């Protein structure tokens, strides 16, 4: 019987490799482990919004670390998704100040219109719902983070629809984290 081909090992794109090199240079030579969190962010953006064990092994190899040194970190920080996600991960802030201005209702609303419960991905694969703790934009509550962008003041149907339509219109491709994305309204202009 023919041996089955092993799945291709993930590789960083040339752009990502260049960025990784730039980041490692920020730290003393014998301290390149410091670049672990920045590189995990790059890896997550490169490989479909989550870090599989294979991707984490690649990160370990890139930094000359033992795989466990990456696993123990990726499981500690909540931004790293350890399971496959939909095209867009909606990270809904659920902490006090957002709750005071309707984050519970926002979550229920998003569950209703996406067809996904918190922790799940919508049947069309577009949206994964995730509840997160304070995003530090409490004056513009309720707030949802999607990749690098904050959507704020999501207390009307219009605002929520605006967010979802903007996300639906994005071409699905890996977005490298250092690409420019829009600022939330509260930080735009003056």
């Amino acid at each position, binding site marked *: 019987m023919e041996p089955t081909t092993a799945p291709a090992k993930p590789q960083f794109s040339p752009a990502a490799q260049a960025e990784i090199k730039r980041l490692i240079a*920020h730290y*003393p030579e014998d*301290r390149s*482990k*410091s*670049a*672990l*969190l*920045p590189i*995990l*962010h790059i890896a997550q953006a490169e490989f479909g919004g989550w870090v599989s064990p294979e991707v984490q092994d690649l990160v370990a190899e890139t*930094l000359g670390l033992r795989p466990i*040194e990456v696993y*123990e*970190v990726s499981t*500690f*920080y*909540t*931004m*790293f998704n350890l399971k496959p996600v939909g095209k867009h991960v909606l990270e809904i802030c*659920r*902490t*006090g*100040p957002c*709750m*005071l*201005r*309707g984050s*519970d*209702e*926002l979550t*229920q*609303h998003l569950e209703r219109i996406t067809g996904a419960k918190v922790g799940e991905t919508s049947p069309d694969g577009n949206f994964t719902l995730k509840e*997160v*703790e*304070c*995003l*530090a*934009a*409490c*004056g*513009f*509550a309720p707030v949802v*983070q999607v990749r*690098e*962008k*904050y959507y704020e003041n999501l*207390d*009307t*149907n219009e605002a*929520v629809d605006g967010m979802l339509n903007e996300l639906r219109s994005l071409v699905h491709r890996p977005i490298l*984290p*250092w690409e*420019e*994305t829009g*600022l939330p309204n509260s*930080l735009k202009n*003056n």
Partner: protein
Amino acid sequence: MGRKLLTEHIKVEGIDTFDVYRKHGGYRSVEKALKTMTPDEVVEEVKKSGLRGRGGAGFPTGMKWSFLAKPEGVPRYLVCNADESEPGTFKDRELMTRLPHLLIEGMITSSYALGANTSYIYIRGELLYVLRILEKAIAEAYANGFLGKNILGSGYNLDLHVHPGGGAYICGEETALLESLEGKRGNPRNKPPFPAVQGLYARPTVVNNVESIAAVVPIVNDGGDEYAKIGVGRSTGTKLISACGHLNKPGIYEIELGVPVEEFIYSDEYCGGIWKGRDLKAVVAGGSSVPILPKELILKTAAGEDRLMTYESLSDGGFVTGTMLGSGGFIAMDETTCIVRNTWNFSRFYHHESCGQCSPCREGTGWLEKVLHRLEHGHGSMHDIDLIVSVAKQIEGNTICPLGEAAAWPVAAAVRHFRHEFEWHVTNPKEATAPGAVYRAAGVLA
């Protein structure tokens, strides 16, 4: 109108660029310090200013700086804590986005004072878009000779980098932040040794909040004595207050310390009163960790004096009738707010964010969340109310870092001031859990 030392030019078009910032007096403190002052003289001005750590602890910045060990031939570091995550606090994001060069200027002047040749800004990972703004501004500072080798011909060298976290409240604690910056889990370190002796890479390190570093700029420009003239008593200078919750005008306000709380909440210059014409019920004045106070006690001290926005006035009465200025995360709650639900929400936050290192915190925060959940959902008993107070007491003081206290204080204070509301949840579970009995948003999403 109070003086604005940090945000005077925040509305100027293009102030986030080097040229416009420079045109409005930017980078003067770097010129002054590097050309006319010794590092110790800069430290002396910061001491004279009375500046207190703006991240929440309120520890005098100049004193913190003077603790820094300076062994020969050993590099030392300045690390800026931009891991803003204390619920209710969103001031540093605004400062870094709109005035990135103010933070960079403060970092250069402060690094010079401390003798650091490499400095880091540790920013929470959620704010990658702000990280990009800072990196762009840093590149401009390099291009204009304010970073890199031999800055302004002074012989002083400085490299400045921004480092993202990965989503962990605990990394706002300075030793957890240093662990995280080293590429590890954010477990706070046992102290001593303090970071001033063994910090980043076991080298002497100072960790300061964004706003503290930014305040060094006006302090060096105008002198520590001038800065100390603003404010009341030991609460000197200006403070950014991020106001949220049920206010007509939530947002970020730079105030002179000493503004009466009542004026801050109700005047049109600041928050413009409580939304929807409702009455104020309670305030968490300094980020979710500080004790909640009912309306009567946030507006007046127990002695009946006006409560002021200062470290001393807000803590007047200790935790029996007072609270803390903390990070300046000011959360206002209107009369429809369910205190039990809010307390449960905060407990869930601390349970989620506990690093799990110390048993009293790891287990205690879980119990607080669990018992508060059943109280909120109508399954609690009178004994549960005493139970959460007892659990909170057993966490307090028994952990490596202050997350333990941060989890315990809000619970103890909520029961202290709103015990009747907890009891009502036990005696009237049906009513308490009925729709409308807890806070509901405007109904726009119904």
